[in-house]
């Protein structure tokens, strides 16, 4: 976004609704750290107190509470929002509940106040249906990644009626004052980061049914350019959140990877029985830690039976070789070894990673304007190697050949790079070294 063209917004007082959730507290910490006075609103007083303590924990400071003021809805939105510059709605991801609360906000907001909703993929336009024209002109989705103080990626989804100068000023303010890596997205299901990221995660979950959980997490593990293995990531995010995201995309998009968003039946059945990942530690998700004879043991789900068995050390020779090269900072050689490894397992891993490159880069022009936006959100939102950095390491021509070999659509960018029509390296995010994403 052209920073020089944008002015910063006046942002002194922010009202966070649903401040007791992870996103609410994270957003409150972010705005307070940037110098705003923040009113944190939850249903009950005890929850507000807990939320203020959570912000202190996030900021590692008791003093940050000096900028916070706690309130409940009983205090009245009219009163709470009276001098608000931004009303930040961060209640649970429930369309009806959000819509109802936003209707109240519409009635209570001062004429100039911006209204934002934090959502991982609900339609911004649909959330603002039946709202006043003034509300719609001041409404945007701001998707923060969890936890917001560590993950700086931020998707900005302006309501189509928000005037362009206002959108630019909001983006500039989030970026310069609050240190966010802002990516402007169109109002499409799951926006950019989650659409791309959860496609990969769900595809790996589908493959786990046939190949096993540990095998898939090893084959598509951190050596392929991510901080955490895919199925462990789903456990961290929560199976309920995963399901909500992939179901939304599956129901509301029709793209070349549609089938990849179909939640595996075994996950639906287990989630029904309460297996939601790390948030249900006793039941677990793909993994669980249980006490056996006084010591903690990691157990792994067998998707076929729904049972858990002790995790076994798993070493895949080519993966170990790639990791050893990454460990020494030889990322290009590492990726070369990965791309030239032989056997079914190597093909399986490559198909997922090439699928990520293809799917991600094809979202440029659809969900976001430029491929650099995709790079930015996958890096700063997911901690994954940005797709263009992978193309650079593999080589554009070789990427094209591999995409064709796996029958994956070739993004125009890769084709152009292979023909030498765009300058390489493609990856150009300033001050980011792609090496950081390739674990040893």
């Amino acid at each position, binding site marked *: 976004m052209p920073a020089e063209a944008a002015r910063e917004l006046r942002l002194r007082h922010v009202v966070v609704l649903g401040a007791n959730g992870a996103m609410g507290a994270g957003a409150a910490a972010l705005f307070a750290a940037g110098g705003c006075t923040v009113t944190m609103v939850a249903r009950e007083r005890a929850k507000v107190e807990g939320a203020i303590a959570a912000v202190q924990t996030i900021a590692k400071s008791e*003093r940050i509470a000096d900028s916070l003021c706690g309130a409940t809805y009983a205090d009245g939105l009219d009163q709470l929002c009276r001098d608000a510059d931004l009303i930040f709605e961060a209640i649970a991801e429930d369309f009806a509940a959000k819509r109802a609360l936003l209707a109240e906000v519409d009635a209570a907001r001062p004429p100039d106040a911006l209204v934002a909703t934090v959502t991982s993929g609900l339609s911004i336009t649909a959330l603002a249906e039946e709202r006043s024209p003034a509300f719609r002109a001041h409404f945007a989705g701001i998707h923060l990644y969890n936890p917001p*103080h560590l993950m700086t990626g931020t998707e900005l989804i302006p309501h189509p009626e928000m005037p362009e100068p206002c959108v630019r000023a909001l983006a500039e303010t989030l970026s310069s004052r609050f*240190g966010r890596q802002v990516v402007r997205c169109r109002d499409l299901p799951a926006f950019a980061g989650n659409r791309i990221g959860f496609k990969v995660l769900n595809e790996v979950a589908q493959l786990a049914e046939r190949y096993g959980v540990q095998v898939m997490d090893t084959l598509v593990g951190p050596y392929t350019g991510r901080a955490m293995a895919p199925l462990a990531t789903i456990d961290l995010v929560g199976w309920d959140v995963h399901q909500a995201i992939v179901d939304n995309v599956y129901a509301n998009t029709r793209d070349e990877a549609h089938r990849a968003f179909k939640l595996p039946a075994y996950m639906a059945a287990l989630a029904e029985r309460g297996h939601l990942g790390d948030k249900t530690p006793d039941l677990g998700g793909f993994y669980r830690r249980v006490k056996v004879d006084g010591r903690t043991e990691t157990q792994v789900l067998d998707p076929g039976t729904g049972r858990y068995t002790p995790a076994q050390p798993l070493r895949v020779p080519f993966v170990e070789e790639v990791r050893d090269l990454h460990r020494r900072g030889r990322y290009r050689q590492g990726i070369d070894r990965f791309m030239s490894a032989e056997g079914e397992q190597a093909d399986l891993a490559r198909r997922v990673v090439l699928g990520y490159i293809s799917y991600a880069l094809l979202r440029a022009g659809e969900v976001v304007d430029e491929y650099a936006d995709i790079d930015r959100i996958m890096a700063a939102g997911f901690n994954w190697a940005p797709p263009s950095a992978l193309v650079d390491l593999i080589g554009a021509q070789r990427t094209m050949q591999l995409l064709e070999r796996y029958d994956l659509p070739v993004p125009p960018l890769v084709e152009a790079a292979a023909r030498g029509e765009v300058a390489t390296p493609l990856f150009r995010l300033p001050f980011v070294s792609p090496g950081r994403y390739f674990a040893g």
Partner: protein
Amino acid sequence: MAEPVFVLGGYQTDFARNWAKEGKHISALIVEAVSGALDATGIDPADVGVGHVGNFAAELYTMQGHLGAFLLEVDPAFSGLPTARHEAACASGSIAILAASAEIEAGRYDLALVLGIEQMKTVDSARGGDFLGTAAWYEREAAGISYPFPKLFGRLGDEYDRRYGLKDEHLARIAAINYANAKRNPLAQTRTWYMSEEHARSTDRYNTVIGGRIKVSDCSQVTDGAACIFLASKEYARKYAAARNLDLERIPRILGWGHHTAPICFDDKIAESRDNPYVLPHTRQAILDAFRRAGIADVWGIDAIETHDCFTTSEYMAIDHFGLTPPGKSWQAIEEGVIELDGALPINPSGGLIGAGHPVGCTGVRQVLDAYRQVTDSAPGYQVNGARRVATLNIGGSGTTSVSFVIGV
């Protein structure tokens, strides 16, 4: 007089990274930093005549010594390259620069690579604190003491307090400024952290006392990081400038340097300076030497300073030792806003060791790289307008080894 030594730029790794968590060996840090510097300058690795590495304690933190040899891992063209590793605690990076620049001045080589590096997040903070104790006289000042260095630099504050009076609120301001500057630095370790002057002033369950008057907010960071720069003879710099269509006069150079060592024990330093207006006179002398060699009358001939704020007390000391105020009156420059990013003489526009981070053996090289960036108008986000001459001060131990450079055009 020797020909000047030119600084051709370089590269710094992101100080927020945790390389052990990434599963990386220290060689990855070396490969990324040196490759980054080669890419940033477009220098042909075959042109490099010698490599000098500044590092404090890789043997302790990573069980790996002989770091000079690891330069050969970067590029096949480095096979056979003469290399050495230099150690002077937190001043190791500057000592590597001094060694490289002496070789350029002597005409032995035309182009030297200098790498500063430390990987520290391999151990917990208590063990790391113990390792750092080897920068003091370990047996006498550190053995059996948890976090010996905060305590030693707390005593530096105490000595100021005894001689001149010292208010902790001034130390809090130093912390707040460094953190605020770091927010503008895309490679700073603390760029996303919360800090306010009120927090730095308070003592609570998060901002605990580490030793004496030193709290968490007064401390620099435990950091993994490396920085690499290239130093060149006039002849190489001329070729370098011509190939890039640059004006040789605009290529920064080391205008001056100073280097002194004080007794290693803190008590001995204080005893020695008893009758001196400066608490650390050898540090003061290193700065004066750098100014003299640069032909600069006093600190007002400098546009910005990158100093060694391992603790807020060391920056407090640097303010009067650089001569921004008379001895003991550093608080004046703090109160008047002189040292802020938009002040008359900004200190640590990068965020310094407190904000940007302190990978011990890297810091001296990082400071000179930041000075290079300032005088070439290429400091990303924390540029001091119109900076043409920038001074550095890098200190090893409790004010033991002091090195100062003036970098300018």
